[in-house]
């Protein structure tokens, strides 16, 4: 059986949907961060797959994915650092509770 483009896209789409759902519904910042990673990774998959199927001679999509993974790692590190600091201050990582800086 040949693997078609669609077979990659659909899981990626489902992954992205889960990410969005999780990002919107979760109140825990860690969970939101995980959802964010999900979305990011689904996008990475798309990049790779489109590159592979549509422009096999070129490698920009691959590079870009690698780049994004690296950025995501850094971003996660920063986010986790913030979350930990917020937790230290507020004893809480629920985003509905952390409204001190609003307005």
């Amino acid at each position, binding site marked *: 059986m040949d693997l078609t483009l669609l077979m990659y896209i659909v899981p990626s789409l489902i992954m992205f949907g889960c990410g*969005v759902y999780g*990002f*919107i*519904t979760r109140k825990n910042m860690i969970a*939101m961060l995980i959802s964010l990673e999900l979305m990011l990774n689904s996008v990475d998959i798309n990049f790779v797959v489109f590159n592979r199927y549509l422009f096999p001679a070129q490698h920009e999509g691959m590079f870009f994915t690698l780049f994004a993974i690296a950025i995501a790692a850094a971003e996660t590190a920063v986010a986790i650092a913030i979350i930990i600091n917020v937790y230290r201050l507020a004893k809480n990582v629920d985003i509905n509770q952390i*409204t001190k800086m609003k307005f």
Partner: protein
Amino acid sequence: MPLSSTIYVLAIPFFMFLFLGLVGVKMPRKITGVIGVLGMAVTTVWAYAIAFTYFFGNGEGQMLDGVRQQIVTTDWTWLSFYADKLVVRLGVLLDPISAMMLIVISTVSFMVHLYSLGYMSDHDGNPEKGFQRYYADLALFTFSMLGLVVSTNIFQMFIFFEMVGVSSYLLIGFYYGQQPANHASKKAFIVTRLADLFFLIGILILSFYTETFDFKEIMGANGHDVCNAFTSAQGLTFMGCSVTGWALTFIFIGGAGKSAMYPLHIWLPDAMEGPTPVSALIHAATMVVAGVFLVARMFPLYVLEQGAMDIICVVGAFTAFYAAAVACTQSDIKRALAFSTISQIAFMMTSLAVSSAKGELIGGHEAGLGYMASMFHLFTHAMFKALLFLCAGAIIHAVHSNENSKMHGLHKYMPITSIAFLIGCLAIAGIPPFAGFFSKDEILVACYEKGIGWGLWMSMVAGMTAFYMFRIYYLIFFWKKHEVHGEHKPKDQPWTMTVPLIVLALISCVAGFVPFGKLVTWDGVQLETHLNLPVACASVGIALIGIGLATVMYWKENPLPDKLATMFKGLWTASYKRFYMDELYQFITHKIIFQGISKPIAWFDRTIIDGFFNLLGNVTNSASFGIRKMQSGNVQGYVSYYIIGAVLLAAITGIVILFV
């Protein structure tokens, strides 16, 4: 005295106004008063010199072919609306009526200046406040009035109309601390301003067609030669009447306001709140004749516009009767005199209006007789009415009241005043040989020439004049014994007040013999006048009847007047209340203008227009409060909006791609 120096007759009072107003207020009262009187004395002498030079001198250009010429001695371009046409000049125009007015104004004004030294020196025993201001205002008024009569153009006339209006406002409101004076001055100004509005509209219409304000250019030299622009504009009609008719009627309304013609007379009785010498000067002798003077000045135009003349005639005749009827019942002597003034001025107006310069219109009789009579009456009336007012002032000064119920029987205490007042009454009633007889006789002749109806009507009013004047006289000086209150006995006044009375009384005795027809006519051509015996006899007879009636009713205390008053209660009350004209005006101004127009407009402004802009502000405000919720800072919310938006956008794009 060269005629070119006429300008100084105006300049002196103006300078006195500035001097007394700016410097005089810091000086002692006595000195200010004396300076004021001296200044006025110089003005008077100068004015007399000018007038005599004009009438009897034989300088170049004064008389041409037996026609007395109009002479412009000063001409200064003050304001040019257009570079070439419609230029307002301030200048001095000497002609018979302005020269005559110079005499009238300066004489009365000088008398009043002198009289005021005594009258205004104290106010119920205290030194009068604002004595210096009073003299400054008097000087301003004199200046304005002199400027008015020597106007070379209609716009200058308008300017000085406004100026006399303001100085009259200041003088009526002299006792500004008292509410009645305050209201009266306001009323006088606003009513005359309303009339001036019509005057202005009239000027606008007239100048639109003639393209000039200048009297000489409009009416030609001596009024003989009315310009073509005017005569051709007579052909144009607006709402059924000729445009010039409209213009002249509007201008007449302007004059009617100053001259207190019905229904614009209501300010004059109230104006008696001012000091009595002021009433004598402004509201009896000079300013109130400004309207008559205006019509006389533009007489050559009015002659061409018979419709406007008819309006003046009707208004004048009605006012004469109306004011006489009211004067018969007034208890305040100054008010009674005020109504008498209105009535007499209406005589002058009517006389002008019945006069016709074109001989053929009245069957070849003396043309322009009414004009001459009107000016004659203006002259004599100014003298004897000023006399009457100054007498009234002396009486009021003595008894501290305007009501005749507080007077009675003063003959014993104030003999000089009594005799002077009697002379005034005889003059106004038209008893020979006093001044009023001659002028009134000419007026009646002119009226009879217009039509027997007009003549009879005016004769009747003349009879009423005699009646109400003697009613006042008897009620003041006789009727019953004077009730003396305490130590204070009424007595004749100091010499400063007596001298003017005597001088004016003498003038009233002899003024009738001035050969007026030789001096003052509308076109400068001398007019032969002679006594019309039947008319003269009839009018003297009617006057005697009036006097007789008054003697019966008011000589000695008797119940007859009260009986009559109760018998004709409605009529008497109506007359006493001046036929409810004041109430009518009160209704119009307060109920209609203030409550009916101004209040709703102010409400509309605050509520509707301002409300609209506030609404704009409030809607913006509440809208931004509403959408502020969206900016919650909640990232999850933002993402939701974003997702919803993205899905919608995708859906719309899909639909568009699919179906378009």
